[in-house]
């Protein structure tokens, strides 16, 4: 199989991740808890080690600022529902995945908040446009770092400075960028960083994290409440970080695997990994340029691109049909449709049928991509 759906979840994972998942499951899979027994403490230490790894990798303020989540959606909900109050205003963009746009739209429809959706051009949001959308009531700017449809990387450094100057909080959805585009929390004033563990950080599904910076300390509410493994006598959720946000048994097995994934990425560096993916996508762009009916969605700028790209498909065949044929007849996995991001498809004119998305990984070869493109050529040559 040729797997070009890494924007959904990365596959395969590095060998070290598989080995650690097996080892940990066989030897250390206790429910983490302070005190208790040795295995529980070892499991707790694993969580702690990976918190440190995340904090170092993204240069955060402190390890306890990282809460493990089920996925990036969980982390985004935790931040959005943790800080918004009635009457607040939120700024988001038309690039957002439903994991940001749905919780915000639901609050908006309930009449509790107002929201402004900044419009992107060619897949990019301008920092000035975000700044212009901020009002005195703006509590939160929530936006993606890299579009999951187009792969376009947004200028979050400039945006972060503008948001910080306004006093609003900034939530960045790093679903497509964590591990691929460098993020430096010391250099960039981001209040919340939400990320999945199972995409560019190569952990298993069921992992994610939310970084909550110091400015969120007094304002964030725990979206999930329950057991934290310590301070059980307290009637309410204990305020101690990171447990405050982590109620319920954590996916410690997944986190153990995620730790190895982060180490694997750190060893190679996001720049090198991104470069490989962008070179593969350049193959696609060049092919699309010379192929009748095919067109890359958004502006192709290899310097500002993550490892995903979407294509307009020729007349007479839909992205769904192409993906079906690639799968059934060629054993190639890609993702058609709206990619849970309807607003950008409306902007691009690709709503409702969507686009065909290709997303390689460091394990993808130039030959894999060439095979996919040959298959697309063959399929469209025979369009009925």
């Amino acid at each position, binding site marked *: 199989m040729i797997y070009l759906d890494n924007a959904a979840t990365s596959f395969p994972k590095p060998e070290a991740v598989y080995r650690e998942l097996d080892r940990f499951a066989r030897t250390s899979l206790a429910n983490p808890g302070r005190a208790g027994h040795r295995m529980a403490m070892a499991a707790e230490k694993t969580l702690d080690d990976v918190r440190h790894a995340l904090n170092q990798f993204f240069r955060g303020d402190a390890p306890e600022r990282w809460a493990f989540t089920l996925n990036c959606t969980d982390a985004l909900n935790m931040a959005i529902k943790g800080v918004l109050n009635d009457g607040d205003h939120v700024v988001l963009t038309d690039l957002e995945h439903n994991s940001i746009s749905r919780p915000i739209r639901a609050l908006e429809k309930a009449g509790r908040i107002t929201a402004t959706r900044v419009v992107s051009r060619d897949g990019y949001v301008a920092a000035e446009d975000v700044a212009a959308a901020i009002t005195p009531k703006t509590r939160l700017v929530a936006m993606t770092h890299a579009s999951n449809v187009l792969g376009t990387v947004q200028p979050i450094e400039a945006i972060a400075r503008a948001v910080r100057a306004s006093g609003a909080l900034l939530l960045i959805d790093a679903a497509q960028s964590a591990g691929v585009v460098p993020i430096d929390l010391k250099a960039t004033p981001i209040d919340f960083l939400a990320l999945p563990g199972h995409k560019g950080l190569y952990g298993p599904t069921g992992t994610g994290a939310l970084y909550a910076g110091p400015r969120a300390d007094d304002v964030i509410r725990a979206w999930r409440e329950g057991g934290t493994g310590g301070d059980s006598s307290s009637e309410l959720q204990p305020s101690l970080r990171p447990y405050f946000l982590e109620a319920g048994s954590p996916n410690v097995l997944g986190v153990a695997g995620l730790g190895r994934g982060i180490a694997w990425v750190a060893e190679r560096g996001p720049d090198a990994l991104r470069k490989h993916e962008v070179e593969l996508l350049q193959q696609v762009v060049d092919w699309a340029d010379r192929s009748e009916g095919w067109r890359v969605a958004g502006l192709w700028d290899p310097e500002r691109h993550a490892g995903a790209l979407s294509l307009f498909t020729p007349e007479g065949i839909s992205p769904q049909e192409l993906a*079906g*044929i690639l799968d059934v007849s060629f054993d190639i996995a890609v993702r058609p449709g709206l990619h849970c991001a309807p607003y950008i498809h409306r902007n691009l004119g690709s709503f409702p049928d969507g686009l065909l998305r290709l997303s390689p990984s460091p394990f993808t070869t130039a030959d894999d991509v060439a095979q996919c493109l040959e298959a697309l050529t063959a399929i469209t040559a025979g369009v*009925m």
Partner: protein
Amino acid sequence: MAAPASTTAPDPLDRYSRQVRFPALGEDGQRALMNSRVTLCGCGALGTVLANHLARAGVGHLRIIDRDFIETHNLQRQILFDERDVADNLPKAEAAARKLRLINSTIEVEPVVTDLDHTNALDLMGDADLILDGTDNFETRYLINDAAVKLNKPWIFGGVIGSEGQTMTILPGETPCLRCVIETAPPPGMTPTCETAGVLGPAVAVIASFEAVEAIKLLAGKKEALNRDLIMVDLWDWTFRQLKVSGLFGRVDCPCCKHRKFDWLEGEAGSHTTALCGRNAVQVASRRPEPLKFPEMADRLKALGDVRHNAFMLRFATEGYEFTVFPDGRAIIKGTNDIAKAKTLYAQFVGA
């Protein structure tokens, strides 16, 4: 002043006098019918004939399950419906219930507009004395078979295509079950359906009438009179065959009635998973992919609409729906957002 009610109340058996006089049924049989409950799965051609017979015969409680709405091309053979029902856009179960209540106001008719599946089958059949097959696909028949064997309730299988039909009465623990006789359903795309091969109304009525008589015997407590074989008839060629399957009972290594593996009821074998894709389109995927033969499929479908195929896909357009079928049996059906409707269309045109 009102007349004393007790002297004028009619005997509830009066309306059934002509069948009560039939000695093999008798008054005890009629009373048993009136106290019985039937779950009828599917209210199309077979289902309307079955429901008509059983309501008139006085079956006390009829639960009718069907998720579809009436269309004009149903009227050729689905005897409880008329043009006004089409105009009113009524669900089949509801329209049937209204008609049946006019026919016999003394019985209870319970329409259930839903897709019968593994999540609701036991609930809908659990209180029935008998389950009747008025479906149009093997998928649902295996589900009924699983539920009936698990619940230890009798059911009657019936199926018709063209001028041919089959029926068999299944008494769990006494006769072979459907999987003893036909272990697995044919792969999708390989079998004719009423949509592709057509169907004659009288042929359906014959099979449904066979089923109905068996139902009356069973519900009236006259089990000794049941037919325990597989009956196959062709009304056009005028052939009638009785396949001696009763001898298979207990001798087949049946996954269902011997090993009690209820693959369809547990949702393991239900062959189709579905997902919405894009606007107004549903993907139906076979859980047991088998290579389809596009040229043969195209031959079957060409009379019904525009059909084209190449090595990668078969496209077929009919009745406002567009099918893109892939060689492993997966299909994208455009023209509906309704997953249950897409499954019905798949069963009708691709087959199951």
